[in-house]
């Protein structure tokens, strides 16, 4: 391996750190910061120092564009690999990345950001998670395979109206699921993060025949739907599911303001995708490692979320990609975006030793593996999910009262997702 002493590997990233999605994306900065200092305290990567260069766009496209321009003109030589957070930025920059030959890692993207308007065109963005629509397809597979849990399944979308929220509501998904015997209602029911009452949306979906509600929303979104179902006394009849983000810790915490008649929080039993390992899977060394770093850096519980976990993985992927390319090209200076792209395309890599699997093909630049999991609450021994409030682990809430401890229980193994971007 080449010696990079005296060199600096920059990790470039920008995204919404102060806007409406900051609450989920902010821990990315924390994770990258922690990872950088971790490596540097160990003498760097092959002698090269790590550094991060980032910008806050506040979620605005104008700001993202200007941040991109600034990056590309200030670091025109070094910038070959960029970490993005949001599908919106991906959509905005797709063409420009191709023009400037810059590879971009993104945790999950919309079809348009990864594959362009036609859903096929190659680009320079690579997502570690499967496309949201593919996640939905994989959920349909799961539904179709478990008729005892989901008899006569009809899925209705109750979701946010933005690009993220409506990803998965495409006709292709409906067609695919229909083929599996799972009906998907044509009209999604939209609600906004500021809505205090979404009875109307939920009931609309139920009136239209839904017995499974699927949501692409985060934080209060899934909790609000779950609470509404309990209020209506339908928590048993109607199942709740969503994208990978609904499995996040915040959802588990916010969702316990409403208890089901059986005494467990309303979001108990919510299904979701889990295309990577989760905080609770401590048997895995990758998770162990991140957890250790998390505690070492005294990160608060709010940051124990998907973004923090995945960002450690992405940093590892960035380092690995860079090293492989450098090894091929001989020196850091010689590396171009196209070289990076060649590396990425040929990479078959267990990120961080198993957090998730990175493997792309020319026609597939998003994650291919997914598994379905369910949100549960830990039992007193922390060995598995609690069956009821009696055997649930309750910890002291600093704000008074007790808290259930959310855990994610995988229900399936990693399987290939169907390709629905069609």
């Amino acid at each position: 391996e080449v010696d990079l002493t005296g060199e600096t590997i920059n990790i470039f990233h920008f995204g919404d750190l102060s806007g409406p999605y900051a609450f989920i994306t902010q821990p990315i900065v924390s994770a990258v910061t922690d990872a950088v200092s971790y490596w540097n305290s160990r003498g760097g990567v092959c002698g090269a120092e790590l550094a991060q260069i980032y910008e806050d766009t506040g979620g605005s496209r104008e700001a993202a564009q200007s941040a991109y321009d600034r990056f590309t003109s200030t670091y025109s030589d070094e910038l070959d690999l960029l970490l993005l957070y949001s599908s919106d930025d991906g959509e905005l920059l797709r063409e420009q990345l191709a023009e400037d030959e810059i590879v971009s890692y993104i945790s999950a993207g919309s079809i348009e950001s990864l594959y362009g308007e036609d859903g096929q065109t190659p680009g320079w963005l690579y997502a570690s998670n499967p496309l949201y629509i593919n996640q939905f397809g994989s959920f349909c597979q799961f539904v179709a395979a478990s008729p005892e849990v989901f008899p006569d399944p009809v899925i209705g979308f109750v979701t946010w109206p933005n690009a993220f929220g409506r990803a998965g509501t495409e006709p292709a998904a409906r067609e695919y699921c229909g083929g599996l015997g799972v009906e998907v209602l044509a009209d999604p029911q939209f609600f906004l993060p500021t809505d205090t009452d979404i009875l109307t949306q939920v009931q609309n979906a139920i009136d239209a025949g839904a017995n499974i509600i699927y949501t692409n929303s985060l934080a209060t979104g899934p909790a609000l739907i779950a609470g509404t179902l309990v209020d209506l006394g339908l928590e048993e009849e109607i199942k709740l599911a969503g994208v990978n983000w609904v499995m996040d810790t915040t959802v588990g915490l916010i969702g316990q303001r409403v208890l089901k008649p059986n005494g467990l929080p309303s979001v108990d039993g919510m299904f979701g995708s889990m295309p990577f390992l989760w905080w609770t899977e401590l048997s895995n060394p990758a998770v162990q490692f991140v957890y250790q770093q998390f505690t070492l850096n005294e990160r608060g519980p709010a940051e124990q979320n998907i973004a923090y976990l995945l960002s450690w993985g992405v940093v590892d992927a960035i380092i690995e990609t860079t090293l492989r390319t450098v090894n091929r090209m001989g020196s850091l200076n010689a590396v171009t975006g196209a070289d990076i792209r060649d590396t990425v395309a040929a990479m078959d890599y267990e990120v961080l030793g198993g957090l998730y699997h990175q493997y792309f093909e020319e026609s597939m630049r998003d994650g291919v593996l997914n598994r379905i999991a369910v949100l549960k609450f830990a039992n007193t021994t922390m060995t598995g999910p609690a069956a009821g409030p009696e055997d649930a682990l309750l910890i002291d809430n600093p704000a008074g009262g007790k808290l259930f401890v959310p855990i994610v229980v995988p229900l399936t193994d990693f399987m290939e997702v169907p390709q629905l971007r069609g």
Partner: protein
Amino acid sequence: MTESINRNKRQLTWALYILAAVALLLFMGDQLAGKKAARIVQTLISGVLVGGVYGLVALGIVVINKASGVFNFAHGWMMVVGGMIFWSFFTVSEISVAGASLLAAATMLMMLTTASYRNLLERRNLLIAAGGTVGLTALMTVGGIEWRWLHALTGTVAGAILTGLAVERFTIRPLIGQPLFTAVLMTLAVAEVLHGVTQIAWGTVELDLPIFVDPQTNSRFKPIRLDAFREALDGLAIIRVELVIAFVLALLAFVGFILFFRYTSVGLAMRATSEDQQLAQSVGLRVRVILAITWAAAAFLASIAGVLQGGAVGLSLNISFVALRVFPAVLLGGLESVTGALVGGIIIGIVEQFGTLINSSQQVGANLAPYVVLMLVLVIRPEGLFGEKRIERI
């Protein structure tokens, strides 16, 4: 004779209203025909209850407008700040005496210097301030977590007053007598700064504000289920208790403000100030003090709204966007009218909910219906339902 002309005019206006309402009903009736009675009743209940909170938010905007003619774009962020302060006192078991006394002292200092910094020179004033600081600190810190309502309420009041006064002092006061637009823009700048302050102090994570909870189970109040009417309604309708509480609190705030404006001369002074700040100064009105009072009051209202909203869905920075959704309510009711704020809020609440009922896959409820209704009302009544008529005399 003129009386009769006026009456005719009024009748005409009413006729137009009724016509518009009938048209709306006909349109909706068609859309609603297939729905069960329970759904319609439920939508109405939701609309009214949600509208109560909208009304409360609208009230804060109206109060500022009444005193300064400024449309406050920072209201949403004042809601967030208020809610977060409440959260800090409500959920933290060990309140730091140093922090609390700092807050109390800052608040007292701001109150003392509202009219003029010269007030600091008098010993009596300093004593009052010191006493106030000690008292407030005591209220914020006495006892343990079981006193949290007291802590939170005092803390929020102090925090709101401080926020309101600081906003007025450092951003609005320098603009007395300057173009109104500039002041409106200033509120936008204030919104940005409050946004930053919230992020520094509380981060961006969603917070849980357990105020509408059953102390026994620590879970949210169970909704009232109208099981008794199940047959009649052909289905179940429920009433969410936390929204009812919020609604009642909103009503109380309204009654308070209506009385305040009716029985104190401050209301009159506010109206004068909003019309012409320079003129108000020239007749000796303490424009600075009046503005300070209003901003403090508005910040307080914003805090209540923030706490209620935060209690109902959880506290996040997104709450600031509620204020945007309330704009049509403010205008519908009339920019200067306290009653209008409530009525506007409720109407917008109902309109949103029915819009959602009819078609939520195209976001008719949140993005279309309120604005269409607003346009209709403004064309019939340019000053909103209860607003002040513009005086045109040459």
